[in-house]
């Protein structure tokens, strides 16, 4: 018997680590990995709630989240390659053409 709150706390820790990485990191690929970490933390909450309420649709939702995350990773990494080709850098501080 593991209380539901333990799973939620673990998911929250993973999500917080993802947010912190998103804000701290300067490498665009690492920032992208932090987003994946956040998605994983949310997925854990989904599965824990699905087990708690005996509702399998929570696991189906996790499946959809994974599909969207995979599509997002493919497009996002292609964008990173395009950015690197034009700017010759992976540092987000130097990708600032939109800044005034």
């Amino acid at each position, binding site marked *: 018997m593991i209380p539901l709150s333990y799973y939620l706390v673990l998911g929250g*820790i993973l999500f917080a680590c993802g947010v912190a990485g998103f804000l701290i990191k300067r490498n665009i690929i690492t920032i992208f990995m932090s987003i994946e970490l956040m998605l994983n933390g949310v997925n854990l909450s989904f599965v824990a709630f699905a087990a*708690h309420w005996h509702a*399998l649709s929570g696991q189906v939702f996790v*499946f959809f989240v994974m599909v969207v995350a995979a599509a997002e990773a*493919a497009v996002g990494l*292609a964008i990173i390659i395009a950015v690197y080709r034009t700017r010759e850098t992976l540092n987000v501080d130097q990708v600032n053409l939109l800044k005034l």
Partner: protein
Amino acid sequence: MLHLILFTGFGLVCVAGAVNLLVQRHPINSALSLVVVMGALAAEYLLLGAEFVAAVQVIVYAGAVMVLFVFVIMLLNAGEEERTQGSRVALLLGVPGLVVGSLLIAWVLIHRSGTEAVRVGALPGYPKAIAQLLFHDFLLPFEVTSILVLIAIMGAVVLAAKPSQVQQGKKEG
């Protein structure tokens, strides 16, 4: 008791991998620690009785997505990231705020969410039940997902192609 030990062990591996992702400065080290996090999460899903989700987690996340990440890191020859000076106010206010906020959230979750517990293995998470749900109740979202993936493939090819190739394609087409 065994479940609690397994949960704690894999949970600690998870948190250690996530913290290592933040600490490491080379992207390839961060990517490998993210693989560790995802593998440990798959074990957590197994503890919750979600066999299908655990299998998909290993195949899609730890397999496909992370291979994509590692390939891009190698392709772009990404080196160590440069440290930049953060704001001093953010450091002074942010770190105590983060600690207080996370402690508050953990306290509320543990004390206010009651004593109900997740029964391990109580949920029929085997693939047959998921498939019945996926292809009956969620058939339309599932089909829409295929369109999404198709668009993502085309977008990735167009974005990652060399500009000269895209120009040539326009002239020919």
